[in-house]
């Protein structure tokens, strides 16, 4: 009897994760949705960008083709928040990283075409692309913060006790910078 009361007492005490863990999980999922949303926004800009560049720089077929292919690959990788794990995250980062570097190369090539750079349609696209890259950065940082909070809740006592008894959530993956080199070399889409 005594141990039963004690048991209830412990559960009562440790239930401080009861609200905070699911809340934090919701937060993580929302932030992830935003990350994907912003990457999608970037993909949506690309057809317009490619067709604009094509008009001025038709010699750059290979670079343009690489962007189109990288985009196709990137849009095919989506992760449901429930399936956020290390592998899926790695796949996602790789696909998006591939697109980032293809875009980076395109932007270097563009430097050779002053007429294109002066084109107002292209300038607007540049601004949109810059804005999207910035939104991606912001969304990623917020996702990283939310993951930190969530992982702390499920690994640091006392909330971790509640998790290990009832919820059994696993740590969520942080952004893996698998292609660190490419990311670092990816020219910022800045002019």
């Amino acid at each position: 009897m005594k141990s039963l009361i004690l048991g209830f007492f412990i559960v009562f005490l440790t239930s401080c994760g009861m609200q905070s863990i699911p809340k934090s999980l919701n937060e993580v999922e929302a932030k992830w949705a935003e990350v994907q949303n912003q990457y999608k926004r970037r993909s949506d800009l690309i057809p317009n960008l490619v067709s604009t560049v094509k008009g001025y720089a038709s010699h750059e077929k290979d670079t343009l083709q690489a962007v189109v292919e990288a985009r196709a690959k990137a849009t095919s990788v989506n992760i449901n928040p429930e399936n956020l794990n290390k592998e899926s995250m790695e796949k996602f980062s790789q696909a998006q990283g591939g697109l980032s570097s293809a875009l980076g190369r395109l932007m270097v090539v563009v430097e050779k075409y002053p007429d294109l750079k002066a084109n107002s349609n292209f300038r607007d696209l540049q601004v949109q692309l810059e804005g999207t890259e910035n939104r991606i950065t912001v969304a990623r940082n917020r996702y990283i913060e939310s993951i930190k909070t969530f992982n702390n809740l499920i690994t640091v006592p006392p909330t971790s006790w509640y998790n290990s008894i009832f919820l059994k959530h696993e740590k969520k993956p942080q952004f893996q910078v698998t292609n660190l080199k490419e990311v670092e070399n990816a020219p910022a889409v800045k002019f």
Partner: protein
Amino acid sequence: MGSLFAKDVPALRGPVVDQAGLLSPKVRSALARTLFDIKNQTTNEIVVLTVDSLEGENIDGYSIKVVDQWKLGQEGKDNGVLMLIAAKERKMRIEVGRGLEGVLPDITTGRIIRSMRPHFKNGDYKSGIILGLTQIIEKTGGTLHNAPRAKQRRSGRGSSGLLIIVVIILLLLFRGGSAGGLLAGLLLGSSMGRGGYSSRGGSGYSGGSFGSGGGFSGGGASGDW
């Protein structure tokens, strides 16, 4: 990373936080009044921040740090705008709250920045800032009181032509002496005679405080000069 890039966010003492001292006290207080007035009209919170230097931080990163801390705009409406100017780096950014991204898309903010650039190049920060703010206010549905209003026309060209006239008048008045200053104050919706507001002095201004919980997600545009 955090320790490497750790430029502090200044206190939000009012809608014009001129740390770099690019504006005269008179202009500063006239702008502050205008921005208070715009807040009363539309609840939009438009704030100008100038800094001496970004201390190694990039302007996009610093800008989002500032608005995350200041939370410009109303909670739920997310209708804040920050105009950030870094004097030493010669960089500027207009950060747009989530709720205003529709009326101030990146393309528009990019164009606003490009229109400010020539003034900044000439060292005329005042004109650049006024030109930028006037466009932001127009796009976000605010009205400059007593100023000749741009007629609501469908054609964008006509309205922007009138807008330019308004701006030129404002600039001329700001250039003028005390009488001009008074007129500019009137145009900006308040008389200059009343107790001056200065972000540096931090004297109390009972116009409702800025920073009401608005959220940002990185919208806007950056540029240099």
